[in-house]
C-alpha cells in the first residue's frame, strides 16, 4: 500500500476521531446509568418526591454528559477539519489528540455519575435540603470533570500544533506520548474526584448543618486527587513543547512514547486511591464534625503517601525524556 502524506494524515484523523468518540462514550454512559439507577431507588423510597428527584437526576446526567460532549467536539473536528500541512507529524498529533480525549473522558464520565446518584438518594432521605444538595452536586460534578477538560486542552493543542520544520523521527512519538500521558492519567483522577463528590452529597443529606465543612473537605480532597492528572499534563506539555534533536534510531522515539505511557498509567492508580481517601474523609467529616481538623490532616497525609507512586512514575518519565 502506498501512503502519501495526505492519505496518512486523513487516515490518522479518522482513526483518532473514532477512538475519541468510542472510548469517550464509555464513561458518561456508565455514570448516567448509575445516576438513573439510584434515582429509581430514591423514587421507590420517597414516591411523593418523584418530581424533585427526576429533576435532580436530569441535571446530574446533563453534567455527566459533558465528558462525552467534549469527545464529540474533538471527534467532529478531527473528521471535518482541513489539514493544511499533511505529513507524519500532523498524522501523529491528530491520532494523539484522539487517544487523549478518548481516554480522558472515561474517568470523569463515570465519576460525575456518582454524586448525581448519591444526591438523588439524599433527596429521598432529606427532602428539605433538596436545593442545597443539587447545588453541592453541581459543584462536585463540575470539579470532577477537570481531568476531562485537561484532556480536551491537550487534544486541542495537539490538533492545532503546526509541525513546521521539526524533524519527524523522534517527535512523532513525543506527540502520541503527550496524548497518552494526559488521557490515561485523567481516568483515575476523574473517578477519584467523583468518589469524593459522591460522599459529600451523602454527607450533606445526612447532616445538613455540616454542609459548609463537607463541601470544603470535598474540594480539598478533589484538588489533591487531581494532582496525578496535573502530573500527566506536565509530562504532556514537556513532550509537546520540547524540541527533540533529530535521530533515526527507533529507541529514541520509543523512549518518548514510553515516557507518556508511563506517566499516564502511573497516574491512574493514585487518582483512584486519593479519591478513596477523600471519600472516607468527607463521609466522616459529615458524621463527626468535631474532629474535622484531624480528619483533614489524616486525609492529606494519606493522600500524599498514596500519591508517591505517581511521583515514581513521573521520575521515570522525566528520566526517559531527559536522560536516556
Amino acid at each position: 500500500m502506498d501512503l502519501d502524506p495526505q492519505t496518512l494524515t486523513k487516515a490518522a484523523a479518522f482513526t483518532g476521531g473514532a477512538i475519541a468518540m468510542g472510548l469517550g462514550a464509555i464513561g458518561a454512559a456508565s455514570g448516567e446509568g448509575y445516576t438513573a439507577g439510584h434515582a429509581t431507588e430514591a423514587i421507590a423510597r420517597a414516591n411523593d418526591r418523584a418530581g424533585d428527584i427526576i429533576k435532580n437526576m436530569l441535571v446530574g446526567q446533563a453534567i455527566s454528559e459533558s465528558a462525552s460532549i467534549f469527545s464529540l467536539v474533538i471527534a467532529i473536528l478531527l473528521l471535518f477539519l482541513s489539514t493544511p500541512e499533511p505529513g507524519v507529524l500532523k498524522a501523529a498529533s491528530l491520532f494523539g489528540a484522539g487517544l487523549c480525549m478518548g481516554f480522558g473522558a472515561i474517568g470523569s464520565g463515570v465519576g460525575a455519575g456518582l454524586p448525581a446518584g448519591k444526591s438523588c438518594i439524599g433527596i429521598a432521605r432529606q427532602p428539605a435540603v433538596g436545593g442545597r444538595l443539587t447545588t453541592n452536586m453541581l459543584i462536585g460534578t463540575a470539579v470532577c470533570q477537570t481531568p476531562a477538560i485537561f484532556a480536551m486542552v491537550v487534544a486541542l493543542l495537539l490538533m492545532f500544533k503546526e509541525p513546521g520544520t521539526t524533524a519527524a523521527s523522534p517527535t512523532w512519538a513525543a506527540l502520541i506520548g503527550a496524548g497518552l500521558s494526559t488521557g490515561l492519567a485523567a481516568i483515575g483522577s476523574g473517578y477519584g474526584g467523583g468518589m469524593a463528590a459522591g460522599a459529600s452529597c451523602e454527607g450533606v443529606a445526612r447532616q445538613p448543618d455540616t454542609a459548609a465543612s463537607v463541601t470544603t473537605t470535598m474540594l480539598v480532597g478533589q484538588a489533591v486527587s487531581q494532582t496525578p492528572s496535573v502530573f500527566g499534563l506536565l509530562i504532556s506539555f514537556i513532550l509537546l513543547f520540547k524540541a527533540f534533536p533529530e535521530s533515526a534510531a527507533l529507541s529514541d522515539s520509543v523512549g518518548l512514547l514510553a515516557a507518556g505511557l508511563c506517566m499516564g498509567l502511573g497516574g491512574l492508580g493514585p487518582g483512584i486511591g486519593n479519591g478513596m481517601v477523600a471519600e472516607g474523609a468527607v463521609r466522616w467529616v459529615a458524621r463527626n464534625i468535631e474532629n474535622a481538623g484531624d480528619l483533614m490532616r489524616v486525609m492529606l497525609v494519606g493522600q500524599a503517601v498514596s500519591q508517591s507512586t505517581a511521583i515514581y512514575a513521573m521520575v521515570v518519565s522525566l528520566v526517559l525524556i531527559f536522560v536516556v
Partner: protein
Amino acid sequence: MEGLGRLHQIVFTIAGQRFVVNLEPLVMTWIVFGLLIIFGIAAAHKKKRLPGPVQLVGELVVTQLYGLTEEALGARHARVYSPLICALFIFLLLSNWLGILPHLEEPTRDLNTPLSLGLLGFVIAHYAGIREKGFKTYFKSYFEPVFFLMPLNLIGELAKIVSISFRLFGNIMGGAIIILVVSHLTYSILLPPFLNAFFGLFVGTIQAFVFTMLTVVYISVQIK
C-alpha cells in the same frame, strides 16, 4: 459543513505587534449587554409594592443568587460580592441562550469570553483572599501542607482558570457543533428545535449556574 471553524476577524498591526479581533463574539456580547440593560431598566423602573412580571423575575434572580452567595461566603462578604455574582450569572445565562435565535451566536462559544471571565473570577478571588487574610497568611498558604508542594499548589491554582473556562467553552461549543452537524444531516427537518432546547436552554442554564457557583466557591476558599 463549511460553517465549522469559520470566523470573521479583523487583523491589524500596531508597532509591529499583530492584533486579531474576532468580530462575532464582540457584536454578540454587545447584543447581550443591550438586552440586559433593557431588562434591568424594565425590572427596576417604576418599582411597585405589587411587582409586575418583569420586576418579579428580576427580584427572583437577585434574591436567589444573593441567598446562595450568603450561604457560601457569609452575610458580610455576600454584601460585597453578590452584585458581581448576579451580574455574572445573568450575563452568562443570556449569552448561552442567545444561540437559539437564528443568525445569532453565543459569545461564550468563543474561548476568549469564558477565559476572560475565568481570569476575572481568579483575580477577584485572590484579591479577596489577600484583603481578608493579609499578604503573609495568603502567601504562606502556598507552602501548605508541606513546603515542597509549592509548585503543585501554584499549578493547581492556575489549572482552575483553565478548567472553569474550558468547561463552559466545551459545552457551548459542543452544543453548537452538534446542532450544526445534525441540522446538516437532516436538512433541518424536525430535530433542530429540540436540540436547541436541550443544548441552548437546558445545558446553557446549567453551565451558567455552574460557572457562577464555582466562582463563588473559589472566592470562599480564598477568604477562609
